[in-house]
């Protein structure tokens, strides 16, 4: 279990050094998107149009934050369950996405895509939404404001804490970690 500090956008070299179980603190710019926004972004790509942000080296955070209190950039902002984004993730990875942050299992297609195109799935701590909000310094809605909590936001983060779940080598922390501690 190593610890790294990385800055976005992520490169092939960045993700190649990460192994399932490593702790990573991410800084730089990330984008938020969940169910409905993913569908719209993928539809744009399939129609040959530009997505609302540059996917090259990008990190997407699966989150639907609470409304910010006056004077704050964002409300509480913990990860949502990722499997709902599984149908869309491989297309985004193919177009340059390097990191996804959420919680819970991914399907085989996403894991294969991470291996093939060098991308990483990070787990953030579900429910630790007040803690994670501290790492988000700025937030602005850049697409689909009508989706409310599901709108696409550009966020600036400092030392955003995550754990590598699926790395570029095909490892899966959920499977390996569980095997290690299972008592039969």
């Amino acid at each position, binding site marked *: 279990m190593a610890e790294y500090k990385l800055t976005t956008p992520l490169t092939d070299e960045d993700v190649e050094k990460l192994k399932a179980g490593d702790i990573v603190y991410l800084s730089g710019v990330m984008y938020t998107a969940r169910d409905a926004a993913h569908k719209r972004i993928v539809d744009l790509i399939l129609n040959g149009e530009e997505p609302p942000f540059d996917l090259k080296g990008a990190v997407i955070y699966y989150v639907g934050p609470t409304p910010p209190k006056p004077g704050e950039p964002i409300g509480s902002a913990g990860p949502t369950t990722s499997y709902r984004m599984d149908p869309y993730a491989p297309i985004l990875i193919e177009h340059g996405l390097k990191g996804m942050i959420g919680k819970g299992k991914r399907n085989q297609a996403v894991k294969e895509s991470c291996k093939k195109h060098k991308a990483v799935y990070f787990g953030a701590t579900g429910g630790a939404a007040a803690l994670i909000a501290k790492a988000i310094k700025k937030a602005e809605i850049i697409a689909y404001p009508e989706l409310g*909590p599901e709108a696409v936001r550009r966020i600036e983060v400092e030392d955003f804490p995550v754990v590598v779940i699926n790395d570029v080598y095909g490892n899966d922390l959920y499977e390996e970690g569980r095997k290690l501690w299972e008592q039969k």
Partner: protein
Amino acid sequence: MRVVKFDDIVKSVRDTIIYSTTHLAPDMLEALKKAYEEEKSEVSRAVLAQILENAVIAEKEWKPLCQDTGLAIYFVKVGEDVKVEGGTLREAIYEGTRRGYEEGYLRASTCDCFTRANLKDKVGYNLPPIIYFDIVPGDKIDIEFAAKGGGSENVSRATVLAPAAGKEGIKEFVKKVVSDAGPNPCPPLVVGVGIGGSFDMSAVMSKHALFRNIGTPNPDPELDAMEKELKEELNKLGIGAMGMGGTETVLAVHIETYENRMCHIASLPVAVNIQCHSSRHAHITI
């Protein structure tokens, strides 16, 4: 006949929602601290440390513990000798919910089943809530509230076993539900189990079981033993905090049965309602 004012109920409900979604209940805090001390996996301990730190920040800043501020769930016991003045009890709970979610800067998470459009603009903020009413003797209104998130609700399951399956069959079903859920419902978990009644009643009881404070023993010694046994077996699954592998997967198992453990002679209904580590629940008596 005791008279309770509509506005007093609205205010109690509003305040309860805002407080309980930003302050982790003492029973949960204690259980999570114990899990942190006992967890053997390094990565799961790191996750538990974050969960505990999150509770401190949320309390200090009155910030929601989790961004999924849930569906508002109520179990309400209404005394036969109490009358609400100025509106109905149901309307008061609706209005308290709307104000709590809006004024507490909580996320509105209710939507249309088919269009998935947020219901905020149709009927109000995070409305409608889910309310179970019960009529009881006395002149009090007793309200239990929980903010129930989607991640843990999505992996909950109900079934009707054959009577021959017995206690072993029930335990196997509970283990399968928790095992299949893995990391998705944000472990460490509280596992609510409802047994008996009917198909629907077992599910309601499995949800109500989540409201019991951790550490309070089941009044039925046989069920108490079953809860402890199940907890031990579920912790052997190795899932750990947020599914990253570890020894502390389950903080507690709570079992509820229908009156006198009743069910139909042909049936054995069992439901498992999963609760994440961010168990936000509160109890008020008016």
